[in-house]
C-alpha cells in the first residue's frame, strides 16, 4: 500500500508536466485572480465600494456605527439627506444608500426591530452583492445579536416590498449566514470594539477569494491527473502486473489515495505559503484551522480524482470529463467568482461542489475570523470529509467491480 504510494509519488516527481501543473501554474493564476478581485496587498490598496449613508436618527449609536463603517477598508461613505440619497440612487449616480431611520437608537436599546434600510439601484446587482456581503457581515458584527436575525429579515422584507423574490432570498441568506457566523455575543457586547474590526479588515476578501478559489480549482485538476495515473497503469499493463502480486485491488486503490492526498496537501500548502509571502495573507493567525481545512479539502478533492478514474475507461475520457466537471464545479462553487454575485439558483447549486465548502471554510478562517471550534466552520470541514468519504467509497466500489475485467 505504502509502496504503491511511494512509487506514485516518485512517478509524480519524475513527470515534469504534472509538477509544473500542480505547483507552478497555480501561482500566476492566484496572482491574476487576486488582481481581478482587487485583493492585492493589504487593506489600503483595496478598491473601495461607494456607499451613501443617511443618518435620520442623529443618535450617538448611529454616529458611532457610521464611524465604524467608515473605518472599514472596503467602504467609502458619503453622507447626505434621505431625499438626496433617493435621488442619487434612482438616477443611478450611486449604487446604494444605507438609511438609519429615526428611532434606530431606541430600537436598539429596546431590542426591537432596527429601522435600517438599504436602498439600491436594481441595475447594479453585482455591486449590490459585494456591498451586501461587506455590510451585512459588518453590521451584524457591530450590532449583532443572534436574535436579531429574524427581525432583520422581516424588516428587510417590509422595507423592500417591491424587491424581486430571488434577490430577497439572497439577502435573507446573506443575513442568516452572517448571523449564524457572527459572534454570538450578548446584547451588552452589541457593538464590537474597533480592534476586532481592524483585525478583520487586514485582509481583503478578494485575496481570500483568489487564493482559496484558485487553490481548490487547481487542486481538482491535479488530483484528476493523479487519478488518471490509475488508467495509465491500466493502459500500460502495470495494473495487471500489480494484480499478479499478493496486493489486493483495495491495497492498490488505497495506495493511490494516499499519494493523491499527499500531493494535494503539498499543493495547498505551497499555495497558501505563496499567498503569505507574496500578498501578506496572514496564514499564521489560525494554523490549526488552516491545517484542518487543507486536510479536509485534500481529502475531498483527491476523492474526486480517484472516483473519476475508477469509472472512466480511458485517459482521453478523463481529460475531457475533468475539464468539464472541474470547470462547472468551480464556476458554481465560487472558484471563479464569489458565489454571492451569482444568480440565486446557482448559489443553491453551489453546495454540491467541493469548491463551495472549501472556499467558505477559508473565508471562515481569514475573513470571518472564526476559531477552529466554531460550529459553522466545523460543519464545512465535516461536509468536505463527507464528500471525500462518499467519493472514495464510490471509487472503491467501482474499482472492485471493474478491475477484474482488465485481464
Amino acid at each position, binding site marked *: 500500500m505504502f509502496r504503491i504510494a511511494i*512509487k506514485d509519488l516518485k512517478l509524480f516527481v519524475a513527470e515534469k508536466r504534472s509538477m509544473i501543473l500542480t505547483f507552478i501554474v497555480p501561482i500566476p493564476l492566484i496572482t491574476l485572480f487576486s488582481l481581478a478581485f482587487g485583493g492585492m496587498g493589504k487593506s489600503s490598496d483595496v478598491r473601495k465600494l461607494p456607499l451613501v449613508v443617511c443618518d435620520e436618527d442623529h443618535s450617538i449609536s448611529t454616529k458611532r456605527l457610521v464611524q465604524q463603517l467608515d473605518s472599514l477598508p472596503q467602504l467609502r461613505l458619503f453622507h447626505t439627506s434621505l431625499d438626496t440619497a433617493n435621488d442619487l440612487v434612482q438616477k443611478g449616480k450611486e449604487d446604494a444608500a444605507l438609511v438609519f431611520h429615526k428611532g434606530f437608537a431606541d430600537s436598539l436599546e429596546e431590542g426591537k426591530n432596527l429601522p435600517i434600510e438599504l436602498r439600491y439601484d436594481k441595475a447594479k446587482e453585482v455591486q449590490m452583492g459585494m456591498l451586501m456581503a461587506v455590510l451585512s457581515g459588518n453590521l451584524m458584527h457591530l450590532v449583532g445579536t443572534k436574535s436579531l436575525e429574524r427581525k432583520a429579515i422581516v424588516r428587510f422584507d417590509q422595507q423592500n416590498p417591491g424587491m424581486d423574490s430571488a434577490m430577497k432570498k439572497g439577502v435573507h441568506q446573506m443575513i442568516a449566514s452572517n448571523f449564524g457566523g457572527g459572534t454570538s455575543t450578548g446584547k451588552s457586547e452589541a457593538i464590537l470594539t474597533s480592534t476586532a474590526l481592524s483585525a478583520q479588515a487586514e485582509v481583503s476578501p478578494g485575496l481570500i477569494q483568489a487564493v482559496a478559489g484558485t487553490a481548490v480549482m487547481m487542486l481538482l485538476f491535479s488530483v484528476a491527473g493523479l487519478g488518471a495515473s490509475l488508467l495509465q497503469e491500466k493502459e*500500460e499493463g*502495470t495494473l495487471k*502486473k500489480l494484480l*499478479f502480486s499478493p496486493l489486493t485491488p483495495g491495497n492498490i486503490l488505497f495506495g493511490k489515495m494516499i499519494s493523491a492526498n499527499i500531493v494535494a496537501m503539498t499543493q495547498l500548502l505551497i499555495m497558501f505559503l505563496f499567498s503569505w509571502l507574496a500578498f501578506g495573507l496572514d496564514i499564521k493567525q489560525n494554523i490549526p484551522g488552516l491545517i484542518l481545512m487543507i486536510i479536509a479539502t485534500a481529502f475531498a478533492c483527491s476523492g474526486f480524482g480517484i472516483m473519476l478514474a475508477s469509472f472512466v475507461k480511458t485517459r482521453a475520457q478523463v481529460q475531457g470529463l475533468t475539464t468539464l466537471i472541474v470547470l462547472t464545479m468551480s464556476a458554481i462553487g465560487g472558484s471563479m467568482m464569489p458565489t454571492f454575485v451569482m444568480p440565486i439558483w446557482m448559489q443553491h447549486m453551489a453546495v454540491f461542489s467541493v469548491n463551495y465548502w472549501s472556499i467558505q471554510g477559508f473565508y471562515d478562517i481569514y475573513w470571518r475570523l472564526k476559531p477552529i471550534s466554531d460550529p459553522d466552520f466545523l460543519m464545512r470541514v465535516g461536509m468536505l470529509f463527507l464528500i471525500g468519504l462518499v467519493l472514495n467509497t464510490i471509487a472503491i466500489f467501482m474499482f472492485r467491480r471493474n478491475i477484474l475485467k482488465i485481464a
Partner: protein
Amino acid sequence: MIKVENLVKKYGETTALDGISFEIKEGKFFGLLGPNGAGKTTTISILSTILRPDSGTVRIAGFDLQKDPDQCKRNIGVVTQEIALYNKLSAFDNLMFWGGIYDVPKAELKTRISEILSLFGLTERQHDKIEAYSGGMKRRINIASAMLHRPKVLFMDEPTVGVDPQSRNLIFEVLEKLHKEGITIVYTTHYMEEAERFCDQIGIIDKGKIIAEGTLAELKKSGGIKESIAVTFNEISEEVAKKIGTFLDGEFKFTGNTLHYYSNQIKSDLGKLIVLCNDQGADISNIEIQKVNLETIFLSLTGKQLRD
C-alpha cells in the same frame, strides 16, 4: 507443481478455452505452443489468478487457485506479453518496487537485484530511466522484475516477441540457468525453435483445445509422420521414374520432378537412394532431408501453419 483440469473460458460468443487439462511436474520447462488466438494468453491469465475461468480447477504448488489465491500468487512470477514497467523510473527503482510488493526484505532485495542485473548484463544502465532503454533491454528488465521474489513457477507469455538477437540470447541464457536451478517454467510461444530448444514438455493448443501433449519425441511418434528425403531432378522421364520406383521398398511419391521418400532410417537410406538414382541415369539437382519438427507435427494435426 501445476495441475489444470477442464478449464473453460468464454468471452461472450467466443470460446477461448474449451476444456483444457494438463499437468506439469516440478522443474519442467513446459511449452504452450499455438497460433494467434489459440488461447495461450487466456490460459496464462487464469493460471496467474487475474482471470476467472468459467469452470475447471487449477492447483499450483499444492494450493487451490480458487480457495487460496494468495498462496498461489506468492509462488508464481509472471512475465507478460506486453512490457509492463514504469517508464519514468529507473530500472533499479522499478526492480525495487516490483520486488517490494512481494515483501522481499530490502537488503535481500538489493542483493537479488544486483545479481539479476549482472545476469542480464544491465548493471551499468541500472540507474537510467526505462524510457531510455531499447526494446530488448526493457524486455530483460521486464523478465527480471518477475523473478525477484524467487517464484517456484514462472509464467512467460511470448517473452521474445520483437526482441533483437542479442537480448534474445541473453534471455535464453537466463532461461537455461533458471531451468537448471529447478524452477518450473511455463512458456508460451509460436516460435518452434524456442520450444524445441528448451521444452521438456510441450502442449500444442489450437482453438482453445490441447490437441497434443508430451515430450518432443513423444509428439513426433504420436503424430505418425515420418521423416522424408526429397530428391529433385533436373529432368526425369516417366520411364526412369517408374524404374526407380520398382527398386524402392518403402513409401514414396513423385510430385513433378521431385521424389519424396519416407523412411525411419534416413541416414542409411540416403546413400542407397543416391546410388540408385545415379545407376538409373537420373540427373539430381537437389537433395533435401525433411525432418519431423513441431511445425510439421502441427501441420499434420491441424492442417494449418503454426506461423501466419
